[in-house]
């Protein structure tokens, strides 16, 4: 994760701003430019990148560890129950019971147990789909897609995101893209932490603006340089002005993707907009260049004309 093989996270506070659109089109743009690229779909509750980038994938289980009672050794002393921060261990009718859906897998119970009555066992929480994107032009570099998928009803998104990112790093591509989940809590942190740059995708609505500010505060807290991508951008008629906010906050606007029915239509059909709408091909080439400059620590000439 350096300027030589940078990691770019694509994030947003609000859902539905266009992270997947930016991530998939940027990944294809990079691979076609000759950079070997790995896109990690960290939106593990609703991973969609594969719809735009069909890959011949192999499937691998992702496991977390949870507490389990060793019946022969347990004396039901209650030390594990008292230590558990999550209320996952109870003594019912004189027997220690673990509620797996409440267990965070911290392992504290195994540390406080003096009799060897508590252990940890692996449980499946999700899966990874790993493969090379098919149908790439001959002159392209390889494009790998690692998709993290959380099992329905599971809560351990960060575990699946961590596993997906490790597999992504193992492919040693020249560029790694992380398609983060929306929000600013555990899953979003797991997806963007350690990235060289974060592209914050937003739209010029009150919701978009509000949640962009949250996302900015998250990446700022994590010490990640950020650039903004405005999606569904329209001519300014007053109201919400992300560009103005970006100038005042000292964050470069790296691209403005226009509000265009052709883009929406291609996206809805699962197509890459760089293929469907001619103007977008060059826009993503420029976005890639600016994002890589930002990742390498350089200042960037932005659309707003302000350097970071």
């Amino acid at each position, binding site marked *: 994760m350096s300027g030589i093989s940078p990691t770019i996270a694509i994030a947003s506070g609000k859902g539905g701003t266009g992270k997947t659109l930016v991530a998939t089109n940027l990944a294809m743009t990079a691979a076609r430019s000759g950079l070997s690229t790995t896109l990690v779909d960290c939106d593990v509750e609703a991973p969609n990148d594969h719809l735009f980038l069909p890959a011949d994938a192999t499937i691998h289980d992702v496991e977390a560890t949870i507490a389990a009672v060793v019946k022969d050794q347990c004396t039901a002393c209650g030390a594990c129950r008292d230590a558990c921060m999550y*209320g996952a261990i*109870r003594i*019912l*009718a004189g*027997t220690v019971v673990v*509620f797996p*859906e*409440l267990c965070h897998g911290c392992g504290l119970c195994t540390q406080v147990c003096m009799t060897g009555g508590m252990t940890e066992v692996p449980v499946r929480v999700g899966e990874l789909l790993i493969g090379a994107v098919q149908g790439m032009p001959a002159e392209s570099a390889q494009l790998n897609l690692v998709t993290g998928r959380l099992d329905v009803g599971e809560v351990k998104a960060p575990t699946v995101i961590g596993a997906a990112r490790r597999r992504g790093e193992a492919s040693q591509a020249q560029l790694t893209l992380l398609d983060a989940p929306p929000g600013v809590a555990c899953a979003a942190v797991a997806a963007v932490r350690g990235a060289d740059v974060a592209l914050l995708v937003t739209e010029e609505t009150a919701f978009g603006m509000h949640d962009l500010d949250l996302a900015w505060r998250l990446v700022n807290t994590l010490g990640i340089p950020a650039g903004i991508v405005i999606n569904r951008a329209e001519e300014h008629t007053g109201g919400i002005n992300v560009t103005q906010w970006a100038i005042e906050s000292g964050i470069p606007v790296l691209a403005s993707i226009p509000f265009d029915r052709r883009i929406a239509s291609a996206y809805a059909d699962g197509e890459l907009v760089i293929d469907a709408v001619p103007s977008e091909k060059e826009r993503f080439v420029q976005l890639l260049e600016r994002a890589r400059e930002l990742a390498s620590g350089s200042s960037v000439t932005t659309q707003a004309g302000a350097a970071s």
Partner: protein
Amino acid sequence: MIVVASAAGPTLDDAVDERFGRAKYFVAVDPDTGEIVKSIDNSANREAQGGAGTGSAEIVSELGAVAVLTGHLGPKAFAALEIAGIPGYAAVGRSVSEAVKAYVAKELETLTAGPAGIKP
């Protein structure tokens, strides 16, 4: 023998609390005498971030209850009570003492697992 009611307060005259995991009080009653054996303030589970249902089941289990009189059991509370071998009965709209009398008269319906998380 002890039956435990989730209750809005610590006395026999308080209403049965619809919530189990996040009930205000648990009132343990001897159904033979109709007298309170113990009243427990359930604020620890009320204020817990998670695990309130299983925590309340643990309290009831430790009291040695043979039945729980309440309004609603979430899936984890239900599972925990099942492990403890304690059935739940629907008793909302009654005071604790009325609920215990209805339990003794076998007028109460058995509860099954409902959806999680009725908000206070």
